[in-house]
């Protein structure tokens, strides 16, 4: 009888695999570090291959979901190695660096490549490094066509934490088809 609550939690947790996609140095690893460990480092250590992390989040009062986060090495296009990491993903965060305009184009290319690889999966596009407004290169007019198309865009900062929780929970809700 004593072990019943334990059993229930073990049985009801859903797991979802989520991939971090985007050009190099846009902040994928930093966003995961902020989200999972509430930490940030200015030092850049590029990811080679993929690094897997998990985080349990509450979506609603009675829904918990364990996110299996695949932080994939950044690149401007999908190669066979990175494509192999996508299998089984329920959705993905597409990340661009607001201070580098070309990473926006990479994000658009990657979105196409990813959806042709794993089909139409939910995703949220993050404009990261929102704390560096004075270096901002991605103008509202640039993102207009995508927002018109109904893409979910979110400014984030792994440094300050702005928008980070929202980004992951927004994606999780889309995956679980919970109205937002």
């Amino acid at each position, binding site marked *: 009888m004593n072990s019943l609550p334990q059993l229930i939690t073990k049985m009801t947790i859903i797991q979802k695999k989520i991939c971090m996609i985007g050009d190099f140095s846009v902040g994928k690893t930093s966003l995961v570090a902020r989200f999972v460990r509430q930490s940030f480092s200015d030092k850049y250590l590029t990811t080679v*291959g993929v690094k897997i992390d998990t985080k349990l989040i509450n979506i609603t009062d009675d829904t918990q979901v364990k996110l299996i986060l695949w932080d994939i090495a950044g690149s401007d296009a999908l190669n066979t190695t990175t494509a192999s990491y996508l299998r*089984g*993903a329920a959705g993905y965060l597409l990340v661009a660096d607001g201070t580098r305009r070309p990473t926006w184009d990479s994000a658009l290319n990657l979105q196409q490549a990813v959806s042709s690889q794993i089909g139409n999966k939910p995703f949220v596009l993050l404009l990261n490094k929102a704390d560096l407004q004075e270096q901002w290169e991605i103008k509202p007019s640039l993102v207009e066509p995508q927002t018109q198309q109904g893409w979910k865009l979110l400014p984030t900062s792994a440094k300050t934490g702005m928008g980070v929780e929202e980004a992951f929970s927004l994606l999780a809700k889309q995956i679980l088809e919970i109205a937002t």
Partner: protein
Amino acid sequence: MAIPLSITKYIRSMWMAETVITYLQVDKQGNLKSWGGHPRHYGLSNLIADRPATEQLYFLEGLLTAPHSQKLEFVGLATDRYAHVSIIPTTEGTWVLLFDATAAHDQKQKMQQQVNELSLLTYRQSQLLQGLEATRKSLEEEKQKLEEVIESKTNYISTLIKTMQMPMECVDGYHQLLNKVELIEARTTDYLNVVKNNTNQLLSDINHVLDETKSEAGQVALYISHCEIKVLLENLVSIFQSVAQAKGLLFSLEIKENVPPRVMLDELRFQQILINLITNGLKFTPKGFVTVTMSWEREQLHFVVADSGSGISSEAQQKIFMPSPPNTTDKSMGLAISQHFVKLMGGQLTVESSPKMGSMFKGFVVAPLPLGP
């Protein structure tokens, strides 16, 4: 469950290459069956048999349903260790093999790090250059605009000066006529009126030009030369005497004995100062006098222009030397520019006045004696 021959061979070849191998076996229902090698190496501890594999090995989430083999390179699990992962479906379930690739990962990471950092640096540099280029362009445009403004100003001024030439010639002509004609009352008055009108026109034109050049006055250069001060003053008297007479005013000039015949100063600017002061005096004096007094002391030429006119309230005196906004006519003209010129010439210009008691403009400019004979 027997290990298929192909997998045995594969494992053996890796073994021979001294690769650290870990294996995990999952049954058709997705439960972990068995394992071997070094799962702890990757932080995979507390493994429990016959429980769902994806609950214990998170990275397998979504991967066990594939009908064919998959290879994932450089997968980082909970620790700093990286593995190449092979997921091989068999008739009885799935084999998951982990080959340690930490050393290869770290080596590749160092190389990739350099490549990425270089690429970031190159990008920042090109942004910087673009910024510089943009600044250069906007400066160039600014310069272009300024040059256009200066040119149009110059054009305007030269047009104005041309319009001044006509009345000036007229004054000259009538003056010559006056000299020849016997002083017959009615005619003389007519001519004098023409002279007066033209003189007024001329003076207001001059003031327009002065106003126009005000903004550039900061750049005015002085042209200092030998100045025959008495000749200059007598010329002024000849210009203003007729105007004063027509108004019934007494206009007089007093040159103190200590004034040398020649001094060094910018003749044209000094003349402009006096013209402005005398014009104002005549303009604001309905009856009585306007007098100009000159003296010289310690290399300074002192002048006083006094009148018996309407005077200036102390409030107005505060503002009298300030530049007037454009298109304000019928005010004392050219005082700001006079003040500016006086200062440029190393002197001072002040006013003493009270309403109905007339005004006295006092000033001096630096005017040394010429060197040599």
